[in-house]
């Protein structure tokens, strides 16, 4: 397994409902990243379809594997690159059970998928109307490191990142579609999740405007000691690349020993109180 990898935060804007257009754009970004010797490229939440598709989710949904995952696999294979992107997943064997899913594809095919655990249904968000929540938070052991994925609102819940870290994740990819008024929240939470878990956190947000909602971009790689290794532009499309050095984890864990100091007995109480809420 590599000690160092180069990661690209591909902050694109999407054309709502136009998968062909969005795949074409992702292909361009993948080619560009490959020229920079990037090994892992990460696209925003629902990058295959755009975020604000509303009822079109039903016709845009695809199973995994499906036509779009095959196209993305081909791109990963041709460019010898790992890719994380977002799509509406229709579960196999059901009529209309959808998930807001992140797909993780390697040069040798799709490694796995992560289904969003926390679906925001407040303010302008209506995800529970369309999606079923996910029930697994996996970590993937790959040639480019142990990698876990969360999606946007998941990051408000420290247990998601903590679980990934305790399962061995060295890098957490957080793919997102966050509108502008929420920038402060994510800029705070990305640093907090990285720091409290001493883990690399690659946050990749959507850019551009959908349905009048302005996605603020600002994708960033946060290091395990809470520093911003690289940050993409605000508002506009951008490709930000940075080096991840997994050897830093041990050094930082020694300096910020949050994992050593964990108190498991508190989780029991947390579970009890969360159930009673």
């Amino acid at each position, binding site marked *: 397994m590599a000690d160092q990898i180069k990661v690209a935060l591909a902050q694109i804007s999407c*054309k709502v*409902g136009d998968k062909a257009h969005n795949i074409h754009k992702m292909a361009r970004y993948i080619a560009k990243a490959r020229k920079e010797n990037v090994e892992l490229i990460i696209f925003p939440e629902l990058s295959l379809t*755009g975020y*604000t*598709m*509303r*009822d079109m989710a039903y016709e845009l949904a695809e199973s995994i594997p499906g036509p779009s995952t095959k196209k993305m696999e081909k791109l990963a294979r041709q460019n010898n690159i790992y890719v994380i992107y977002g799509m509406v997943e229709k579960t196999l064997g059901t009529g209309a059970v959808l998930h807001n899913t992140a797909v993780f594809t390697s040069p040798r095919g799709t490694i796995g998928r992560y289904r969003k655990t926390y679906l925001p249904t407040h303010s302008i968000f209506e995800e529970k109307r369309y999606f079923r929540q996910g029930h697994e938070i996996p970590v993937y052991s790959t040639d480019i490191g142990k990698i876990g994925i969360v999606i946007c609102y998941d990051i408000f819940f420290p247990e998601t990142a903590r679980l990934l870290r305790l399962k061995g994740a060295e890098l957490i990819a957080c793919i997102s579609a966050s509108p502008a008024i929420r920038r402060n929240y994510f800029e705070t939470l990305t640093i907090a999740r990285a720091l409290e878990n001493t883990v690399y956190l690659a946050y990749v947000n959507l850019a551009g*405007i959908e349905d009048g909602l*302005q996605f603020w971009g600002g994708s960033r790689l946060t290091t395990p000691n809470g520093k911003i290794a690289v940050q993409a532009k605000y508002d506009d499309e951008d490709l930000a690349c940075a080096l991840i050095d997994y050897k830093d984890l041990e050094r930082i864990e020694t300096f910020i020993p949050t994992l050593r100091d964990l108190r498991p007995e508190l989780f029991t109480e947390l579970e009890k109180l969360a159930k009673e809420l």
Partner: protein
Amino acid sequence: MQLTPDILKIDLEETKQKIARFIEDYVAKTKAEGIVLGMSGGIDSSTNAALNALAIGGNKTYGLLMPEKETENKIDINHAKQVARQFKIRTTLIDITKILDSLYETIPDFEPSNLKAKGNLKARTRMVLLYYYANSRDLIVAGSSDKSESMIGYYTKFGDIAADITPQQDLYKTQVRQLAKYIGIAEAIIRKPSTPALWPGQTAEEEIGTSYEKLDLVLYGFEHFMETSRIAEQLLLPIKTVESIKRRWLNAEHKRRMPLTPKLAFRTVGKDFRLPYDNV
């Protein structure tokens, strides 16, 4: 939360940028030739005109000045022209008196003493002209409604509220004033009393019954789920005043939504057809 004037302060540069991006994006996505908007010389329409011109250029922004004899005010017309000059907006002046006179004469039981019904004809006539220009020149209508007036329904249904986009509708009136000053709208326009000009001598604050400074804080309280009694207590307002504003806000929902229809079928327009604006 304390309802003080500071709470309504906004990041002016960021707000300007966001609104400009919004306008630019919408015009680009709809492949329109530009924007058409009404210019009364008041603060809302002047700010709206300036923001649109800043976003897509004055040469793509068309201002219609639409005075009529009963409420015509030379100062307002001059203010509109001043804004147009300042932001290089192309304007056309259409005196709508003849159209209105024709309507008054044509309606069999026209009642001139019904100020509301008569006044709304003026706002709706302006809407008709804006959409004429929008259709004939492939333009988008940008409405100038602000959040204060939209919340309490202080506008004409299918009149001044009718537009394709409303760039400043999420800004309270006092926030529009801040932004107006920031982008260089003249103090005389910002300071003069707001009026919908539906009849002579009409001023907004007198009709609403409170100043915009107070109204905006009351509405901000409602926006943030505050109880009526707490808002009244903090702003030293009679509870009845705050309750009356709340009633106005709630009762105006019919002006903000698609017309109500009985649910008869599988999916219903305006209810559970939920489609994106940005469509392929």
